[in-house]
Structure formats: C-alpha cells, structure tokens
C-alpha cells in the first residue's frame, strides 16, 4: 500500500506542477526528439498541432482528482503522444503526416528498430549491430530492394501454423480480399542493448541468468516542467504490428503502408507442411501495440491502436449501423460465422483463402467514450494524413503497480483486445480473454524464468 500511496502522491505533485508550469513547455521544436530521449507533456495540454512534435513521453501524467477515469485519461493521452512520436518520419526532421508519400506518409521511426527474427536468430548467433541491415532470408534475396521490410508472422504466435501450439483459439486472420494478415514484433535500442549485453538472444545466455530478467525502464527528467531542455531516457519499448496486403477496395490514403517482402517460413513435422516462399507486396498497417516500461510501472504500459476500417462493434452490427467496407467484416454476409478462425488447413501460400472464406470479425468490448473522444481530438490534428485513420482502442496500466500479491498490478481496463492481434480471444473471461499484462505476465525465458512481460525471449535458440 505504501508504494501505491507514495506513487499517487508523486503523481499528484507532478500534475500540480504541470498545471502551474504548463506554459513553459516547449512545443515549438520543429523536429521530433531523437528516439532515445523522452520528455513529459502536461496532461491538460490542449490537443493542437503543436503536439505533433511534442516527442516521446517518458511516462503518463495526470490531473486530479485521481479517479479511475482521470487516470485512464492520462494514460490514453500518453498513448496518443507515443503514437505520434513513434510514427513520425525517421529522417528526424519531418513532422508526422508531412512525408512525401500518399497522404503525407513516410517511413516511421520504428521502421529502423530491430525485429524479433533478427535478434533471436535461428542459429543462436549474436544479432548484428543496431542500425545494420536486417538479415534477408535466402529465398527473398533476389527480390529485395533497399528500404524493404521482411514480414513473416501469420499469427499472433510465431508458430501458429503448428498444430501442437495453439493458445486459446488463436488462428490466422483473413482480410476481405482473402489474404492472410501478417505480423511483426520490433524492439527499440534500449531493449535490444539489454538483450545483447546479457546474451538473452540465445538459450546458452539465458541459462546464465542468475537473477531476474529486468529490462531498463524509462527515467523522467528531474524538473520536467521547468526546463525546456530537460529530457529523460526512453525505457524498453516493444511493438507489435499487424499488416494487411493492400488490394482491391483498399485506399493507400487510409493506411500507413510499407513495401515489403512477405516471407513464409517453412513448416514441417506437423500435420501439414508449408513451403518456404517469398513475394513482394504493399502492406497497410491495421494494428499496433506499443508496450513501454516505466520505473513507476514495472508491468509496462500497453497502448493499442487500430486502423478505423477494421471492424464494426457488435452493437453496430445489431443496430444495422454499418459502413460499406471493412477490412475484416462483410456487411452483406448474413450467414457468416462471427469471430471464428478460418477452417484448416492454414497455408499462407494458398491465397485467396480457399472456398471463399473471409474473416467476419466484430469488436466484442466496445470502445469507451473517453477513448473515442480522445481519438477524435488527435485525428483532427492529423486531418488529411494517413494517420487520421487510426484510433486508440485503449491503454492498459497497473492500478497497483508493484503489488506484492498480484504481479499484474490489477490492470485497468481488466480486458483489452485489438481485433487484429487478439481477434479470437476478445471478451471478459478471466485467464482466457485478452488482457495484455495478464497474458504477458506468463511470459518466460527458455529456462522457465519470468522474462519481464515479454514473449520475445522464449524465441531463443
């Protein structure tokens, strides 16, 4: 309890300082902050274009009274600032939405980060240095062009095609053009450096861990609202991305897009086999999870965003308030089974999905009015850009951070699902429905040791 009250007191102090000194915050910088730095933006800052260059927040800030609703508001505000910062162009100077591609799109900061396959390498060798090119699978090499990404995962779990490893009802997600949704997991330099320094990238190194796995957390500047130049240090950040193949019915102006090589890993030794293949495609971002570790929130803070055309809510379906087009829902199909994985076999080399199957997905947990309202505010300052087509689902955070009796810290909201990544585990059933902190609380290294809320380490070889 002492921890919680001290934390509340500290947050209160920061919030009061913010209210008194918010006029001193420097939002006039022309360029986003370097990705290893973070800052603090007062929670009552108006949502204006000045926030587009406010930089990556070191942590969430709050206004009193510290009710569940006000705290959620602070975390959601933090999530949107993080979304803006990480999706800013990676040239370090262009403002988000002012890039040279369609509707101001541009390669983002996180597109320079390390992906899971290049860190947890199949042969257990050390990853290449930060900033070096991503290793290209042999089958993709002839197709590769500079700037291309390699995206391979077809399910939330990397080995989803294996018949022996299917947590809950996780399965592939098929868009309305019959294509498999692809996923990627990336980490920032802070997290990457910790993995390398502690040899957590392979099983041999993980066996050597004598203490606990403890990724670096963000540090906050000592006088965040006094000094215009006060910067904190970014904590460990991992992101998960969901991509759809751009095709008929998809407007490039509504998605952040990526020229990619779609790599399908070979699968053998199960009830079916999948051939190793590679092909080019333009991918559109449909889902984005961001997890950032703070010193005050060792359970990490989990932000989840989606492209606005993904799915309708169950309530919208029941009321008949439907759009003409969704990425993962056909408004003209009355007999389609809702929120059901596709029938087996699952072979991403066979596209469109056989027999006309398309995922028919609805949002089970409605977005909160608070989340909707905040997204509208930020979408307004992103108008005319691809980024106005993204919305916050919610932010999950620990209400009792550092609890001695509950390692999840009693997260709020209790359940949180992104329809592109937790498609089939939406709902409110304890230990079964999607809950970022609750699920990642079960993550371990290959030795069974708690891995600090990341499943990345269990992919070591």
């Amino acid at each position: 309890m002492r921890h919680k009250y001290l934390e509340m007191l500290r947050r209160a102090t920061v919030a009061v300082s913010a209210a008194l000194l918010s006029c001193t915050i420097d939002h006039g910088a022309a360029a986003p902050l370097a990705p290893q730095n973070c800052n603090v933006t007062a929670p009552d800052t108006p949502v204006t274009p000045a926030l587009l260059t406010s930089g990556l927040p070191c942590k969430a800030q709050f206004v009193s009274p510290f009710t569940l609703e006000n705290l959620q508001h602070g975390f959601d505000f933090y999530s949107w600032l993080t979304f803006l910062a990480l999706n800013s162009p990676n040239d370090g100077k262009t403002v988000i939405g002012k890039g040279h591609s369609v509707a101001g799109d541009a390669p983002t900061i996180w597109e320079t980060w390390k992906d899971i396959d290049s860190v947890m390498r199949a042969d257990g060798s050390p990853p290449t240095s930060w900033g070096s090119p991503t290793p290209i699978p042999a089958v993709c090499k002839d197709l590769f062009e500079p700037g291309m990404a390699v995206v391979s995962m077809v399910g939330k779990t990397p080995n989803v095609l294996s018949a022996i490893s299917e947590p809950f009802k996780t399965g592939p997600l098929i868009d309305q053009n019959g294509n498999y949704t692809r996923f990627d997991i990336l980490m920032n330099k802070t997290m990457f450096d910790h993995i390398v320094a502690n040899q957590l990238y392979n099983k041999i190194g993980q066996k050597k861990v004598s203490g606990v796995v403890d990724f670096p957390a963000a540090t906050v500047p000592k006088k965040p609202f006094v000094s215009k130049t006060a910067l904190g240090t970014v904590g460990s950040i991992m992101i998960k991305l969901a991509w759809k193949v751009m095709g008929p019915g998809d407007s490039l102006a509504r998605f952040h897009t990526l020229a990619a090589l779609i790599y399908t890993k070979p699968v053998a030794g199960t009830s079916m086999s999948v051939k190793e293949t590679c092909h080019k495609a333009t991918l559109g971002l449909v889902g984005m999870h961001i997890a950032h570790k703070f010193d005050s929130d060792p359970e990490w803070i989990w932000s989840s965003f989606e492209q606005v055309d993904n799915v309708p809510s169950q309530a919208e379906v029941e009321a008949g308030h439907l759009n003409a087009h969704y990425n993962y829902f056909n408004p003209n199909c009355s007999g389609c089974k809702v929120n059901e994985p596709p029938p087996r076999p699952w072979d991403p080399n066979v596209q469109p999905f056989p027999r006309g199957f398309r995922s028919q997905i609805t949002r089970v947990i409605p977005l909160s009015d608070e989340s909707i309202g905040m997204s509208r505010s930020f979408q307004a300052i992103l108008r005319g850009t691809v980024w106005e087509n993204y919305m916050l689902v919610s932010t999950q955070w620990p209400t009792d951070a550092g609890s001695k009796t509950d390692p999840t810290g009693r997260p709020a909201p209790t359940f949180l699902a992104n329809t592109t990544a937790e498609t089939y585990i939406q709902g409110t059933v304890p230990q079964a429905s999607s809950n970022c902190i609750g699920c990642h609380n079960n993550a371990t290294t290959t030795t069974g040791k708690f891995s600090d809320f990341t499943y990345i380490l269990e992919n070591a070889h």
Partner: protein
Amino acid sequence: MSDMDNFVKLSAALTGIDPTKLAPSVDPINIKQEFFDKARTEAGPTFSEALTVAGNTPANTLGDVLLNQSGEDLRFLCRSIMLLWFLGQWITPGDLKRYAVPDPPASPIPSLVISSKAYTQGWIWKVAQAHPMGDSNWHFGYWNGPPPSLNDFIGA
C-alpha cells in the same frame, strides 16, 4: 456517507479486512458493486437497515452491534454478506438460519457462486495466501517459495 461507503464500512467490520483492500480508491474490478447489488436485490429492506446501522455506528464496535445487538434478521444477513465476500457465493439468510441449529439438515446448504468475477475475487483465497483454482497471476515456479505475508494480502 453514501450507501456504498456504509457497505464497505460494514463489510470491513464483518470480515476484518482493511477497507482500502476491499474497495481500493482506484478499482477497475469493482467487485464491491456486484456484492452490494446482490445483497440489495436479495434482502432489500433488511439490507437498508444494515446500512443505516453502519452509518450510525463507530467502526470499532460495528461488528458487535450488527451480529449481537441488532436482531436475528440483521445477524443472518450479515453472515450472508460475510460469506459473499469470502466465497463469492450467495447463501440466503433464511438457509443460514435453517442450518444454525443443533441438528441441521444433512444435505449441503444451498449456495450459488454469483459470477466468475465473484469466484476469482473471493477473499478466502487471499486469506489462505493462495489463489483461486484456475486463476493465478503468480509467476511460473511460485510454489517453490513462501507466499507473500497475510498482511500484504488483507492489510490486517
């Protein structure tokens, strides 16, 4: 004080659990509302009477007043509320009264776990420094070490 404040005060007196543990100021689970609604639905006027007593009685004597000085109806309702907090089960005051005799019925007392949330949030698990079957947030291998202290769980 609101009815909910009085319910939390009453519940803390009956269970011996710190009221800030029963009803944290920031409470995303909010099991107290589910228990409050159940008691009010099942025991309307008697429940209101219990809340009034809670509002008018100092916390340090409230348990004794409710269980020993306020009559049979309040006593058995309070026992139902205690069991609700600990077990997540509603056992009616009437059934508790039927079984509170020297020669009670041989069959188990009728009970109902009112929801999955009530089951996982039952305080019996925390008092036992354990977790509900099928619902553990502790890390792999936790059974190899001692649990957190009882004070950490219930603030007693």
